[in-house]
């Protein structure tokens, strides 16, 4: 007798438990589902996630004059004296600058014309991806950690349905215009909604206007966030650039409200075979 694999029994859907805190001026939300969704292990992991994000803020905040990055920018601290994390973030920023043909840059034109060091375009995704690793020790527990709309999904629950991630409509943040199912991966969105003119095209210093938002789905949040920001900064060139990025999918919303999906080339020989 032959079994149709699609007819296997499914597990009941488990409840999702949520926590929210505000760190670095942004909301950090955690959704947990499974064995350690509400116990002391979950509490401990959540505390570690928040502590990790606060540590990052102390090192990288451009709003804190005493942060490592602020002191580095003012020349009070030598790069050699910075923590290894600073080197890691700067290296990522440089890689993103090269790969985005200069549209993304951690050194952006400041008010006085001097280029100021602002690695926040790298730090957010990188920090959340890093903090989310703590959650992997919660056995048989699915987690989804979101910080200001950028998120990391993990599934560890046998029979997990995965996470369903809505993509916010940039014209109306109370609505979604796409849904992406994610088991293990990250989703980042870049746009101008809610935060004024934050993203600039580093080549011109101008605020990009061609796109309303860029959402990137990738294996890790560091690159999902970098790519979303870079593509947004690239403006009209963003969609074509994204389609050449390996292992990414996502949604681009144009300034006129038109939404389009994209998917880059596969990342590995195995993926190509399955595709």
């Amino acid at each position, binding site marked *: 007798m*032959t*079994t149709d*694999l*699609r007819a296997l029994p499914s*597990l009941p859907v488990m409840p*999702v438990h*949520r926590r*929210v805190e*505000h760190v670095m*001026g942004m*909301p950090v*939300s955690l*959704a947990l589902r499974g064995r350690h969704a509400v116990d002391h292990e979950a509490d401990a992991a959540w505390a570690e996630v928040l502590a990790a994000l606060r540590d990052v803020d102390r090192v990288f905040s451009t709003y804190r004059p005493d942060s490592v990055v602020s002191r580095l920018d003012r020349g009070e601290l030598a790069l050699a004296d910075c923590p290894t994390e600073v080197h890691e973030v700067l290296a990522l920023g440089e890689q993103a600058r090269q790969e985005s043909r200069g549209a993304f840059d951690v050194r952006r034109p400041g008010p006085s014309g001097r280029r100021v060091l602002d690695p926040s375009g790298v730090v957010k995704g990188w920090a959340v991806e890093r903090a989310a690793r703590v959650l992997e020790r919660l056995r048989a527990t699915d987690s*989804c950690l*979101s910080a*200001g*709309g950028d998120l990391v999904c993990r599934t*560890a629950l*046998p*029979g997990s*349905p*995965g*996470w369903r*991630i*809505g*993509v*916010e*409509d*940039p014209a109306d*943040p109370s*609505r*979604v*215009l*796409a*849904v*992406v*199912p*994610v*088991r*293990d*991966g990250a989703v980042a969105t870049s*746009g101008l*909604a*809610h*935060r004024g003119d*934050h993203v600039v095209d580093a080549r011109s210093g101008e605020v990009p206007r061609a796109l309303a938002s860029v*959402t990137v*789905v990738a*294996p890790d949040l560091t690159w999902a966030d970098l790519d979303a920001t870079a593509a947004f900064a690239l403006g009209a060139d963003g969609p074509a650039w994204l389609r050449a990025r390996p*292992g990414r*999918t996502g*949604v681009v919303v144009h300034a006129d409200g038109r*939404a389009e*999906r994209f*998917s*880059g080339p*596969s*990342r590995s020989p195995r*993926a190509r075979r*399955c595709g």
Partner: protein
Amino acid sequence: MRRISAFVLSTISVVVLLFGYSTSTAGPLAATTPPAAESGTTAGSTGSAGSTGSAGSTSTSGGTSSGSTVTGQVVSTRWGPVQVEITVADGRLTGVQVLQQPTGNPKDEEINAYALPILTQESVDAQSADIDMVSGATVTSEGYVSSLQSALDQAGL
């Protein structure tokens, strides 16, 4: 039966099935989505399972003209232990039997690590979209107050 065989033959490589359950179910989805729907994470997890999968055929039995049956080893996957048996006749796969089922639910299209986003016909509210979290440019705590994620968080607390 014919439908099932067709399903198995067209969408699942038995070798892949032996390798790991998550891979086998990636097949049907991958067939309907562009290549990038497959992720590195999936590839990684199946790659590690591949070492056990390669030892798939452990026992062979069955007749000659009616085909032979090959029983795979029990393979541990992220969805639980999986063991399958295949029947081959005249060099062609004629049947697959699952001796040990994983506890996962393969009906989920989300079985892939992540997939191509699904665009809604028009923007919808969170409830209609049945979502767990929202990705958006809602960065500041001020913006969060009116955001959809806030509503989701409140609903879950």
